């Protein structure tokens, strides 16, 4: 029963780069396979900082991702990775550490940890300890090496939080934390955040942890600071209605769906908004003073979170989403800007349903048009693809 649409796995990561460096030596990737029944998260910390560390950690994450995704046996995969990775023969340590989290069918969690701070597991507001198995093997250069493996059943409300040592060691040498923030204090902080906001998203939690660690370092990160969170929860839903239905008989249908949808609602398109307003007996108010980004102004309708123009706005939204990545995207989005506000509504949702009307607006095909307007269906398809691939959202499209 776990594998239903009432559960959603949110995964998010955040990062601060070591002060003075231009690239992070930690790498974190989040990926889902094509059939979307498996999510893999890998966080690797490369030895040192800067380019060299970045190369080492991205080498580790991409190798680990391929192997874990294609091979069932975590233990032998981990041994292979550890034997293959370059090592520092002087310091007799591996060049990169890593944590791998895999979630299958929204149910089975498997975690492999090699030398990173231990993963934190919360069930609701409680820290829980899952039994770990430890594996040892002989490394040709480094000698005996150890890593841990654990698996358990994921439940609604579970959170998994992993971070690089830039988090646990933050604040080291500062007056408050002589030995750094340390794992225990990080856990304490996480439990405070969860108890003050029991529904805190993976996105916000990882941003908060990063900000706190950065503050410990007095806003000059002494090492790369990276955190990734997984949160299993009920999905937050968003409905986007765009375009008039092909058949006018369906006008009442789109209005009905919008009215009864359990989640946030956006209407993209003036004609669409007119149809819904007419069907539901609502009023639309256009605020011509509220304009940003060279876009037609937004409008207001009771019961709808956002009413915008259609194809121009959707095209811009697509380009904006394309310019973002998973890591710390929140910081760059400004809610005062229409497209960013819209992007935030999408990114703060887990399941997004598009109800796309297919009536062609002949005027949009007009050769005299000063700008080229894309066909609504194509833009929506492209938005769906990027939301699924890059942001791991569940997206459905219904054409009417």
């Amino acid at each position: 029963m776990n594998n239903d649409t009432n559960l959603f796995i949110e995964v998010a990561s955040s990062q601060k780069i070591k002060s003075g460096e231009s690239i992070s030596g930690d790498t974190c990737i989040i990926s889902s396979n094509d059939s979307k029944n498996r999510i893999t998260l890998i966080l690797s910390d490369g030895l040192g900082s800067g380019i060299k560390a970045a190369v080492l950690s991205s080498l580790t994450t991409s190798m680990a991702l391929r192997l874990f995704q294609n091979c069932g046996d975590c233990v032998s995969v981990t041994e292979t990775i550890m034997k293959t990775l370059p090592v520092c023969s002087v310091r007799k340590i591996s060049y990169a550490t890593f944590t791998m989290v895999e979630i299958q069918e929204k149910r089975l969690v498997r975690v492999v940890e090699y030398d990173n701070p231990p993963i934190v597991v919360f069930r609701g507001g409680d820290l829980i300890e899952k039994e770990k198995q430890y594996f040892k093997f002989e490394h040709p250069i480094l000698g005996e090496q150890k890593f841990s493996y654990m698996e358990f059943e994921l439940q609604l409300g579970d959170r998994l939080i992993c971070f690089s040592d830039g988090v646990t060691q933050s604040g080291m040498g500062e007056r408050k934390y002589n030995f750094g923030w340390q794992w225990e204090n990080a856990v304490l902080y996480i439990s405070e955040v969860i108890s003050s906001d029991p529904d805190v998203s993976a996105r916000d939690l990882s941003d908060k942890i990063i900000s706190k660690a950065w503050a410990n370092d007095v806003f000059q990160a002494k090492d790369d600071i990276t955190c990734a969170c997984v949160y299993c929860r009920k999905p937050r839903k968003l409905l986007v209605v765009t375009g008039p239905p092909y058949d006018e008989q369906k006008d009442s249908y789109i209005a009905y769906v919008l009215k009864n949808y359990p989640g946030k609602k956006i209407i993209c398109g003036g004609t669409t908004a007119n149809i819904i307003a007419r069907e539901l007996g609502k009023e639309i108010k256009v605020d011509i003073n509220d304009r940003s980004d060279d876009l037609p102004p937004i409008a207001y309708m009771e019961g709808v979170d956002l009413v915008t123009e259609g194809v121009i706005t959707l095209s811009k939204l697509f380009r904006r989403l394309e310019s973002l990545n998973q890591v710390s995207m929140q910081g760059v989005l400004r809610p005062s800007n229409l497209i960013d506000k819209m992007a935030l509504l999408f990114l703060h949702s887990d399941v997004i349903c598009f109800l796309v009307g297919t009536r062609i607006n002949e005027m949009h095909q007009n050769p005299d048009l000063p700008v080229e307007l894309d066909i609504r269906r194509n833009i929506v398809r492209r938005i769906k693809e990027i939301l699924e691939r890059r942001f791991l959202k569940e997206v459905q499209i219904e054409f009417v």
Partner: protein
Amino acid sequence: MKKKITVQICTGTNCYVFGGANLLDLEKNLPSEVKEKVEVKGATCLGFCKDKKYGKAPFVLVEDELVSEADVHKVIKKVMQYVDKVVD
């Protein structure tokens, strides 16, 4: 006091790309003695773009008179015809 003259600027996609964007600042361009007699509103697609008989976008409604291929000058001219009728 008499009712204000209503001006509705279409902000639908067609009107917007055909120059409606420039009309959104109409209010600023109104002569100051006229400004208080006029209410400028935005509107979602007014429907005129769907039928050639109404002429070309952008469309503006001044009270219930349609201005097609509207620009700031055309709209102000039309508004002025009404201003003369609205005497307080």
